[in-house]
């Protein structure tokens, strides 16, 4: 048994930032991570713009900001683009503390390339750096602070005593041992759950473990129907699947005027956003593309055609030279992949097939402004938590969220931990949690393998709980989920290696993914309207009369149960009417 003051699950943006704060408060943090710091998680994959109101960019950061902006305007934009269901207390903390958090990162040595103006923002608010750079800085600070990191440790469950969270259990992937960690407080910072879908911009390890373990322990979750898809990633070939290169050079901020076409060559975005067309917001692009696909008007690989043939060579050739993006190089290499040959063929008329990839979970564990979950002793930070972004996230706000909430969670968890002692864990409870973890390696593989079940989950998610949803498909998905759930307690591993066994890891991850899918499906079924990233083909209007609410997910005797609660409004009163 390991003992520490505060255990932080997740080593990247939110987790690392939280750990620094715990240490600063004079307590001993322990970071546990399924991967390795800076070598896993979503932060490192970020673009990355970090949003701060433009006035503070100028005045507090000394960069090229616009003083006409204000924290209030930034606050409003987040709620307008979030389609009014954001938790306004979380947004207040977000806009209020963003300048200090980014300033601090710059003081620690974070290099900034420029300031970007992302869609949906009234002013340029994206302080542009890279996820690698953010993690370089945070990992160095963690090392400097002598914070312990337990790498290759997969947290599997929270342990409670008298209703309070008093530690965690999990699997040491480097030995195959079941490990118990006693702590006065626990912070979850495990990111989203994008691996629930077959195409994703996020890493392999983003499997919703944090959301699932919080739910199993009885914490509430919120807005789980709200999942952001980034339109225009490659969908083929396999090695490029989910790569954001087409988005970056096209519909993304500072991209070229590319065209998206259906199989008849029609630029279908005219139906969804005639003014902005291919430069529309992420939600509209994804919804536009998938409606073409569903209507049988897509490309062979299940997306749409993406072309730049109409652009003069000079424009295309100058683009990577003048772009000034940390990942796109003048020779068309992007994050280690070389696209020069592809671009040359595209100039001559070749199109590529693109589609939406799962990019971000707006929903997650329910927290308040102090980053407290509904369970005493449990805190959350970053994408694993819901409420900040409402129904759609603005470009650049994910990186701000991890910094703001990382600090808040660390600070508040430390304050709480100072009032607590380590608690005895019930041996029977620990044994029950152990059986769930060691089960797959002890059982023989009789039914479907963990790999097969993961694919089944991803297919159900994509076909029935994807970008375009209907009540009928969602109900059918619940049947599929019930079938898959029956098989999970029997998953066995063919491979019996104790050290870093991928089949074993997936057996545990599949349990997280199915819980996540059930939460998303039930929430999406309940919300009988379309709002932000949640698009119901059988209810296409934004129904402000009936649906200015949040959907909460709870664990009632092991069942995923949904209910509606009123919005958390502080100063921004949403409109009341139904919008087409």
């Amino acid at each position: 048994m390991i003992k520490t003051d505060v255990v932080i699950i997740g080593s990247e943006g939110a987790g690392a930032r939280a750990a620094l704060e715990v240490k600063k408060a004079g307590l001993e943090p322990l970071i546990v991570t399924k991967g390795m710091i800076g070598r896993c998680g979503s932060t490192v994959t970020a673009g990355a713009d970090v949003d701060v109101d433009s006035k503070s960019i100028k005045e507090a950061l000394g960069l090229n900001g616009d003083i006409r902006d204000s924290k209030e305007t930034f606050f409003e934009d987040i709620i307008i683009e979030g389609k009014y269901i954001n938790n306004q207390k979380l947004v207040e903390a977000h806009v209020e503390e963003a300048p200090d958090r980014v300033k601090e990162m710059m003081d620690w040595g974070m290099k900034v390339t420029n300031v970007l103006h992302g869609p949906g923002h009234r002013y340029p608010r994206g302080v542009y750096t890279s996820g690698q750079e953010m993690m370089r800085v945070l990992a160095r600070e963690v090392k400097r602070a002598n914070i312990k990191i337990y790498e290759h440790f997969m947290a599997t469950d929270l342990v409670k005593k008298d209703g309070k969270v008093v530690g965690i259990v999990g699997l040491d992937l480097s030995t195959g041992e079941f490990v118990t960690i006693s702590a006065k407080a626990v912070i979850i910072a495990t990111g989203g759950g994008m691996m629930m879908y077959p195409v994703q911009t996020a890493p392999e390890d983003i499997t919703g473990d944090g959301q699932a373990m919080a739910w199993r322990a009885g914490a509430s979750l919120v807005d789980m129907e709200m999942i952001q898809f980034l339109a225009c990633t490659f969908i083929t070939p396999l090695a490029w699947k989910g790569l954001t290169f087409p988005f970056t050079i096209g519909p993304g901020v500072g991209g070229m005027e590319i065209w998206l076409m259906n199989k008849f060559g029609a630029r279908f975005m005219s139906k969804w956003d005639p003014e902005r067309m291919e430069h529309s917001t992420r939600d509209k692009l994804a919804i536009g593309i998938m409606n073409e696909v569903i209507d049988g008007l897509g490309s062979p690989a299940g997306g749409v055609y993406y072309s730049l043939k109409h652009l003069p060579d000079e424009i295309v050739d100058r683009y990577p030279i003048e772009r000034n993006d940390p990942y796109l190089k003048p020779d068309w290499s992007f994050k280690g992949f070389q696209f020069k040959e592809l671009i040359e063929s595209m100039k001559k008329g070749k199109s590529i097939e693109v589609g939406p990839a799962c990019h971000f979970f707006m929903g997650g564990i329910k927290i308040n402004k102090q980053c407290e979950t509904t369970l005493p002793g449990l805190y959350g930070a970053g994408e694993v938590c819901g409420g900040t972004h409402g129904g759609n996230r603005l470009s650049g706000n994910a990186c701000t969220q991890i910094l703001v909430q990382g600090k808040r969670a660390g600070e508040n968890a430390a304050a709480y931990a100072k009032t607590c002692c380590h608690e005895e864990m019930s041996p029977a409870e620990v044994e029950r949690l152990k059986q769930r973890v060691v089960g797959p390696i002890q059982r023989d593989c009789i039914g479907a393998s963990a790999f097969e079940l993961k694919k089944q989950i991803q297919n159900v998610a994509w076909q029935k709980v994807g970008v375009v949803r209907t009540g009928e498909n969602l109900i059918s998905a619940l049947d599929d989920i019930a079938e898959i759930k029956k098989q999970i307690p029997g998953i066995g591993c063919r491979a019996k290696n104790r050290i870093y066994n991928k089949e074993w890891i997936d057996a545990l991850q599949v349990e997280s993914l199915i819980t996540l899918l059930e939460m998303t499906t039930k929430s999406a079924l309940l919300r009988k309207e379309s709002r932000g990233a949640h698009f119901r083909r059988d209810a296409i209007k934004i129904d402000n009369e009936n649906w200015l609410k949040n959907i909460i997910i709870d664990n009632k005797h092991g069942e995923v149960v949904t209910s509606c609660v009123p919005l958390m409004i502080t100063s921004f009163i949403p409109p009341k009417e139904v919008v087409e």
Partner: protein
Amino acid sequence: MANKKKIVKMKVFRFDPTVDKEPYYDTYEVETGVGYSVMNALQYVVENIDPTLAFYASCRIGVCMGCIIRINGKPLRSCATMLTEDVVLEPMDMKNLLRDLTAKSRQSL
């Protein structure tokens, strides 16, 4: 991109310190031609041929650097290296080796 289908042999370093006295190599045959990276091929092997193979995969898009292994002796990202010909795959870091192609990072507890 490779357009024609062809069979590629991957000779992979294997070692489980709890079982093996010394390292050995296994050779797997993978059909390419569908634009496989080395990482895609390793994943194919684990899912379809040999579930005991261990390797590290995270971002898949060339930024986390967690998947760097020796490909024909050169340290390369397995996600950003296309599989077009026969290859020998070995771990990057023998000193911190966990099993097969996976290693601990130097910062571990």
